[in-house]
């Protein structure tokens, strides 16, 4: 290898990306050539400048601010009205609205029809995730339960209606349910906001009490 060849390989030499044979030839040339040793040293100094080029810290609180803003708006959607955002989210992501991920013991996630299996006479928390495209500060939520399934602590209440603030993204609602017999049924959840309404159905099945290998909880994404 002569000087011209070595200079042509200088980038790769510093990057460590020369094939072994070429690398060896370069090293042999460097032993005898002070000018190329100097060029190599100079290249290393130059790379050192690049690595040392300063990065000032971000402005105070940047990380929290950035995360907060990311949650507060959807990319490219700005501040659109509820109806537009709501309907487009439903149309574009119907599956996401209705799909339920059932979490089996051991963390195995199984995509399934929206359904949860309860164990007879045991209180079980069913998690519903309402995914909304923008803040809904005064939405009306309602839950309707089938006859044989109770909301823990409210045995006679078949329907609950209340006002809630939903925030952009996922809103988690944990509902403690007890099955009183083993017939199947449906939990119906509704979100209403300024004339728009979304209905979500969750299939509830009931198993006889067992101690292992049952589904403990389920997460429904509305």
């Amino acid at each position, binding site marked *: 290898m002569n000087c011209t060849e070595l200079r042509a390989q200088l*980038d790769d030499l510093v990057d460590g990306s020369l094939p072994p044979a070429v690398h060896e030839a370069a090293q042999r040339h460097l032993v005898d050539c002070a000018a190329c040793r100097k*060029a190599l040293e*100079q290249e290393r100094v130059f790379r050192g400048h690049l690595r040392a080029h300063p990065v000032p810290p971000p402005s105070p609180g940047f*990380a929290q601010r950035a995360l907060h803003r990311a949650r507060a708006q959807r990319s490219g959607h700005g501040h659109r009205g509820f109806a537009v955002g709501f309907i487009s989210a439903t149309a574009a992501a119907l599956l996401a609205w209705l799909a339920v991920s059932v979490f089996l013991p051991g963390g195995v996630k199984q995509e399934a029809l929206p359904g949860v299996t309860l164990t007879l006479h045991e209180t079980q928390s069913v998690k519903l995730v309402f995914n909304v495209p923008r803040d809904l500060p005064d939405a009306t939520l309602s839950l309707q339960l089938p006859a044989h399934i109770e909301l823990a602590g409210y045995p006679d209440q078949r329907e609950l209606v209340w006002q809630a603030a939903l*925030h952009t*993204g996922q809103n988690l*609602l944990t509902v403690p349910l007890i099955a009183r017999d083993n017939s199947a049924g449906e939990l119906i959840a509704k979100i209403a906001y300024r004339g728009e309404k979304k209905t979500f159905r969750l299939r509830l099945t009931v198993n006889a009490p067992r101690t292992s290998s049952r589904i403990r909880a389920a997460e429904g994404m509305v």
Partner: protein
Amino acid sequence: MATPIRLFRTSRGDDGFEPLVAPHLERLYRLAYRFTGNRSDAEDLVQDLLIQLYPRRNELTGVERLGPWLARALYYRFVDTLRHGTRDPLRSAVDEEILQDTADPRTSPEQDAENALLHRRLAQALAELNPDQRALVALHDMEGYTLEELQDMLDTPLGTLKSRLHRARRHLRAALATEPFVDELRVNKQRSRQ
């Protein structure tokens, strides 16, 4: 009405986005600063990326190596932003305020002045590169991603990466007046012919 239901928990981090992304923010900002050359554009770039990713947060949980994945997403965001002309690449030339802050207590005032000059020239020269070159120098020469990693990350063949880096470095070296030893090379060649 009062309900026994634990009503919507939407406090910070509940949606899983923050724990996923927060550990990578420092590096992302750093990279964004390398790409853009100034703090406010770097913050905007990271912010844009987070806004873009938030609705896809469920997808992020399935990403095996999130760091490189995010760096790649940031790169594409940067290149897209410049292509669509929403940011002025020349605006980012030099962040004067920052350069004032780089004085090192272990060095002499003369060295500080020299370093500041060097940083300024380098910042200027980086701003003159095209976005692809600049991003590549940032990722490889500044942040230490290997060419093999970048081949996958940027979907670009190794040869293209190398020649792009080569051109970029030539421009930067010239700006720092460290284009190596043209004269000596000529002298040396003559000598070797003798």
